[in-house]
């Protein structure tokens, strides 16, 4: 056993030996092992925190507890087969992941989905943003002590998942998009349910804001906490609401428009305080913008097909596969040999709820991707955690993680 007390504590933590004793515990810095099973780390994030009293001397995140090797799996399956796996990346907004992935593949293969599918995909992305932000709102408020908002947030999210149930057939792991289109068209029931929800949702959001916006405890726990300067935020490659809370007016929906975002009107909320409270305001404002985008998308929703007319690349409708020869052949070829996009490499990113979610695909002209890299926003955002917390208090850890809103399914891939 080492004589250095710090190392002895570390060994004691690792070996689960609880009998270790010290001559003078107050003289030592303490190493706190937070996670991987901790309610405030939002999944399986593990933090090794070196403490001097209540002050954080240094902090080392430890990732990989949810590493499932999706990039390796992707190299061994066809482009279509990977769609269900994208659900499991950021599992709070599976619909947005589905859309991001098929957009990358479509860019590679040179397919464009018909307008109706594009509008429905916008609806998917924005609903995913709402669910993700609602979970963030609830859990972050709970981390700093307000349990009520957690229940309200989850209540609203439950309503969106009921809409997903009608829209996609499942509540959670949606796998709704297909290369060149969608698994199924949006039904009138789904549109009615969505309209109903949009009518009631802003009031619920007001309710949450009323509880938090003037709440002394909430503001004191968030204001000035997790500060990271604008230059550092950019340098770390941070994207999404955290970047916009640092005063950078950057949103891929507007700056690199995909789908039909250039035909919709929306604002990009920007705050300048670089702290957890600013991140809270940005996300709350984004939810209101999402509601407005959803309303416009429903209003402008064109009629027409939802799948591109490209039988060599786009899966045929299942009903036709059982009754028509041509479709049966195409279905057989696509399922067994894949879509064989041209040789090349593309990167396509969308503005997901956490930031820039991108897929980099290298194709060698086969049915399988040669290399697929997932650019996950949570991974890049988490990287700044030590910089945000060094020299701060231990109680700020949960507030800052709440403000970062990482999802470990995405960070660990």
């Amino acid at each position, binding site marked *: 056993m080492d004589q250095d007390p710090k190392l002895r504590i570390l060994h004691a933590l690792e070996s689960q030996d609880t009998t270790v004793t010290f001559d003078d515990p107050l003289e030592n810095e303490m190493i706190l092992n937070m996670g991987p099973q901790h309610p405030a780390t939002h999944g399986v994030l593990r933090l090794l925190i070196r403490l001097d009293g209540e002050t954080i001397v240094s902090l080392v995140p430890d990732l*990989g507890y949810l590493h499932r090797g999706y990039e390796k799996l992707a190299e061994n399956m066809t482009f279509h087969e990977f769609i269900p796996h994208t659900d499991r990346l950021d599992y709070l907004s599976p619909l947005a992941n589905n859309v991001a992935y098929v957009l990358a593949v479509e860019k*590679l293969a040179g397919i464009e989905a018909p307008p109706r599918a594009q509008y429905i995909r916008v609806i998917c992305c924005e609903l995913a943003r709402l669910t993700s932000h609602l979970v963030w709102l609830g859990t972050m408020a709970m981390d700093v002590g307000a349990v009520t908002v957690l229940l309200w947030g989850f209540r609203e999210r439950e309503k969106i998942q009921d809409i997903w149930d009608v829209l996609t057939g499942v509540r959670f792991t949606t796998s709704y998009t297909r290369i060149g289109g969608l698994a199924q068209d949006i039904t009138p029931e789904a549109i009615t349910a969505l309209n109903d929800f949009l009518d009631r949702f802003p009031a619920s959001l007001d309710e949450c804001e009323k509880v938090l916006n003037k709440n002394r405890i909430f503001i004191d726990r968030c204001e000035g906490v997790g500060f990271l300067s604008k230059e550092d935020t*950019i340098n*770390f*490659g941070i994207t999404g609401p955290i970047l916009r809370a640092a005063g950078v007016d950057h949103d891929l929906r507007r700056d690199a428009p995909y789908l039909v975002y250039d035909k919709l009107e929306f604002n990009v909320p920007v705050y300048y305080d670089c702290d957890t409270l600013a991140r809270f305001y940005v996300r709350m404002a984004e939810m209101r913008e999402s509601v407005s985008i959803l309303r416009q998308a429903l209003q402008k929703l064109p009629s027409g097909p939802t799948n591109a007319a490209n039988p060599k690349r786009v899966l045929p409708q299942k009903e036709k596969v059982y009754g028509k020869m041509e479709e049966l052949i195409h279905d057989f070829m696509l399922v067994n040999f894949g879509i064989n996009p041209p040789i090349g*490499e593309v*990167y396509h990113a969308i503005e997901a709820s956490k930031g820039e979610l*991108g897929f*980099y695909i290298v194709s060698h002209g086969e049915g399988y991707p040669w290399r697929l890299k997932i650019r996950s926003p949570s991974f*890049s955002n988490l990287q700044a955690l030590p910089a945000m917390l060094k020299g701060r208090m231990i109680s700020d850890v949960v507030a800052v993680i709440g403000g970062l809103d990482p999802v470990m399914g995405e960070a660990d891939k």
Partner: protein
Amino acid sequence: MKDLLLQKLREQFPSAVEVVSEFRDELTLIIRKADILPVCSFLQSNSDLSFDSIRDLCGADYHRPDDRFEVIYNIYSLKNNFRLRLKVRIDEKDLHVASVSGIWQGANWLERESYDMYGILFDGHPDLRRIYLPEEFEYYPLRKDFPLMGIPGSLPLPRK
């Protein structure tokens, strides 16, 4: 922007850019390995170009006799709203490449990930450890010669 970028790069580094290619409107430059650090530093600090954030960095295994690996940098200029992809070819016999984590802090974990998955060694990296897999794991799982099912016994189980 494309022309300005290429012109500036050719002025500053006449022989650094080996290949310029474009596919689906995405510009890709293959940079000579020895020049990657000065090129990145120039791209980041030049006020006209100002590629101020790194969005992605990854390795790739092309499974060919020469220059088996590649490191791919995906950098973004907020000022010009422009995305650029740089590539460096790396031979299996010499897996070293200069780390860019001193230029963009965001490259730190991304380089650790590439090291974890492909065994590419980033010189000058402050903390080159595996990021996902345990430190005692001996293989590099995203290499094409690593089997999909894994290697039995390669991951030590926790002590009971």
